[in-house]
């Protein structure tokens, strides 16, 4: 209920201008340039609308597949108790910590035409050729199902944990059998969680780039089509494609915002979730545990494959079913050659700088939107969330367009080709992550704490450093760790914006792969995974 002073208004206007400049303005510029392209030609060319159609149907199929894996898993882990439930329950969420490109190359090494599984089948059948090629929509959907079922798994588990056992018992006492209870009570109550997971999966699949890029071959979705058109030099068409993808994504974003607004209706009262059903039949227990561990093995196979390949020296493994030699030579290469060390240092400082900046802006936004209830609060929150809806490809193209000319009066400067463009792109992509965490953090802060500090004579700076920031530490750690990991593993914006000097790890992985240094690529992937896991671990620890 604080009156909003001149200084507060000025600060809010400044923040809105900054966010509009890096988030909205580039999209508008793309929109304007797209108007110059021939819309008729877009629809006349089957490759164009086929790519759009491919984006849509693969995304929908990804949702269905991810739900098919994630929802039953969630029920098993939330409702039944069996040996190893806790450990497995955590392992099952592991695909989430794999950067997209790393997951893709792990799949390549595992299920690709010269991967372990293919070689094993080849040896088993004594065939001269690889039994299959991992390519096209099937390969893409496989990767998507693997990396995105986690959304359904986590959302459904959270939804189930909030369910009140009394509602299920009420249904039973009214004569409903287990199936009817599930259909008429459990499922409707889970609907918000399922809708949330479905939208998240759809948006992620729509923006997915790594899998279609590596496995697509001739099969194009919008993200790869845009990059291809741009490489072919048809800039106007690339703009139009970008605008098309943006329109679809923003439509999805609007649906998400709308359903999130409706979600509040879902929970009525507090209650205790149903008790875990303990599987008592010893045989069933053993079966459940075995199935659980088998599943965990399948889920961890890509991680294990990556680690294994990282120990295979380059050019030692040709046609054998298993690698003939192992050693740490790849890792030694990574850390002894300056040119290989550079991408790692690049990624670290660029992700670090982008994260620090995104945290600072999120704190600024939280102060204004939550603490001081700025009249511009809603606008600020919207601008912070918006980059989430914009596919990485679109964002990269938009930034590349705006910051490739020097027109200071139009707010455009030459940043493309400099060391600033990638951190800027990472920063914009980080905004929704830090923004969400810190706005939630600010909402949990008791305003009386700040008032108490005021009445004790503390000024603005002292209140921020001694009270607000220490109390926000969990939110900063959680949001910051997630943002850092996302930026560190980024591939989709990097491939469009990197320069040789500023190339990040993901680009180096791709280069190593292209020149046939599989072991080096894997070693980079392992380092990336390890640093990501460490960052998330530190974040979780500080967040407690």
């Amino acid at each position, binding site marked *: *209920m*604080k*009156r909003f002073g001149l200084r507060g208004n000025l600060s809010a206007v400044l923040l809105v201008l900054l966010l509009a400049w890096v988030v909205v303005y580039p999209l508008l510029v793309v929109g304007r340039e797209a108007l110059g392209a021939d819309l008729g030609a877009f629809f006349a060319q089957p490759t164009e609308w086929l790519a759009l159609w491919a984006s849509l149907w693969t995304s929908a199929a990804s949702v269905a597949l991810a739900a098919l894996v994630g929802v039953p898993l969630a029920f098993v882990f939330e409702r039944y108790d069996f040996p190893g439930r806790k450990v497995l329950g955590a392992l099952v969420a592991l695909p989430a910590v794999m950067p997209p490109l790393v997951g893709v190359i792990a799949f390549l090494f595992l299920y690709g035409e010269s991967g372990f599984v293919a070689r094993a089948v080849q040896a088993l059948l004594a065939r001269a050729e690889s039994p299959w090629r991992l390519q096209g929509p099937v390969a893409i959907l496989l990767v998507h199902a693997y990396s995105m079922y986690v959304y359904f798994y986590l959302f459904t588990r959270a939804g189930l944990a909030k369910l009140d056992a009394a509602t299920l018992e009420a249904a039973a006492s009214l004569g409903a059998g287990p199936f009817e209870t599930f259909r008429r009570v459990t499922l409707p109550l889970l609907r918000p969680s399922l809708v949330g997971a479905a939208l998240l999966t759809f948006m992620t699949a729509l923006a997915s780039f790594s899998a279609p890029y590596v496995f697509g071959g001739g099969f194009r979705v919008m993200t790869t089509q845009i990059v291809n058109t741009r490489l072919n030099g048809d800039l106007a068409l690339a703009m139009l494609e970008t605008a098309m993808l943006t329109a679809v994504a923003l439509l999805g974003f609007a649906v998400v915002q709308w359903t999130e607004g409706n979600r509040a209706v879902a929970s009525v009262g507090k209650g205790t979730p149903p008790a875990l059903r303990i599987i008592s039949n010893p045989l069933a227990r053993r079966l459940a545990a075995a199935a659980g561990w088998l599943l965990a093995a399948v889920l961890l196979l890509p991680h294990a494959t990556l680690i294994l390949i990282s120990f295979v020296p380059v050019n030692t493994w040709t046609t054998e079913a298993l690698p003939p030699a192992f050693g740490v030579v790849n890792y030694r290469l990574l850390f002894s050659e300056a040119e290989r060390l550079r991408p790692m240092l690049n990624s670290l400082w660029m992700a670090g700088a982008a994260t620090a900046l995104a945290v600072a802006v999120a704190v600024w936004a939280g102060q204004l939107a939550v603490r001081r209830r700025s009249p511009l609060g809603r606008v600020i929150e919207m601008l912070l969330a918006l980059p989430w809806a914009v596919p990485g490809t679109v964002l990269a193209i938009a930034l590349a367009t705006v910051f490739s000319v020097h027109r200071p009066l139009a707010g455009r400067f030459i940043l493309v080709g400099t060391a600033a463009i990638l951190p800027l792109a990472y920063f914009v992509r980080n905004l929704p992550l830090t923004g969400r965490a810190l706005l939630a953090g600010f909402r949990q802060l*008791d305003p*009386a*704490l700040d*008032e*108490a*500090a*005021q*009445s*004790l*004579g*503390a*000024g603005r700076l002292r209140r921020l450093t*001694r*009270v607000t920031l*220490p*109390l926000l*530490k969990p939110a900063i750690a959680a949001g910051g760790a997630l943002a850092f990991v996302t930026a560190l593993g980024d591939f989709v914006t990097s491939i469009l914006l990197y320069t040789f000097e500023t190339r990040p790890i993901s680009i180096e992985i791709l280069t190593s792969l292209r020149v046939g240094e599989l072991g080096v690529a894997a070693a980079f992937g392992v380092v990336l995974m390890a640093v990501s896991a460490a960052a998330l671990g530190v974040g979780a620890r500080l967040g407690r």
Partner: protein
Amino acid sequence: MSGYLRLEGLTKTYAEHRAVDALTLDVARGEVLALLGPSGSGKTTTLRLLAGFERPDAGRIVVDGEDVTTFAPAARRFGMVFQNYALFPHLDVGENVAFGLRTSREVAAKRVAEVLEMVDLAGFARRKVAELSGGQQQRVALARSLAPEPRVLLLDEPLSNLDPSLRERTRRELREAIGRTGITTVFVTHEQEEAFDLGDRVAVLSAGRLEQVGTPDELYDRPATVFVATFVGRANELPGELVGGRPGSRAIVRPEAMRFAAAGALAGTVVARRFAGGHAYFTVRGESGVTFEVFAEHGAARVGAAVRVAVDRVLFREGGGA
């Protein structure tokens, strides 16, 4: 009584709603003033205006001759104890208490020990806030607000977060601590008992307006308005003509100013009895349909009995002459 702290025509409006309406109050140096009123009466807003968390639309706040109306909270040198204490969870007890001190480490440590001693928490400086009981947290909050030696102490519902069993003891401790420092204090409460026990004087607020300010006895025996008469203590509202007033007027009578008497002017039936130790409150439905309470010895009447009731004293009349 010279006003050390003076509120002059304070007004605060939220979207058409007058939370505080032209409030004027004087508080003497060292006096403890209670702001008493039902929820929505503007007492908390008044306290927040005093603390500086809200700016008044009109009026002034003067302390010791200095107009502090436009001062930021940090510049007022007012101590405040919040309803939920607002202790900093990331700091320990000593760090909480030292937060407002602007002195060297040694001097601060000495002062922290001093105020903790004063609230009977000597040796608690290194404890975590979460480890303390509700009553201890309240005393830490008090120590923290007193440490920088504020000019005025503000307390927002200081006992409302405590278990009823703890309240009486904590109230006594609070009264002693405030008494020891002799600090000018304003506190907000909706509990009459709390207001009367802690306050030297009580200001009764209703709908943002000051109804009356005075000692507990004055408020109880000589209420200035119907609101004060009915809000402070128990009271019956009777049609004036039943107790010798002009037709159409209203009369306020305390239950203890009524008694069962064969020659009583009011006739009725006892419909309920509520025990209160040696005495009881009897609910009587009068012949004219009006219902009132009589405070008498618990065996004075049976439920269902027809009784006559005499009125010893009318506390307040409105709308007509006596």
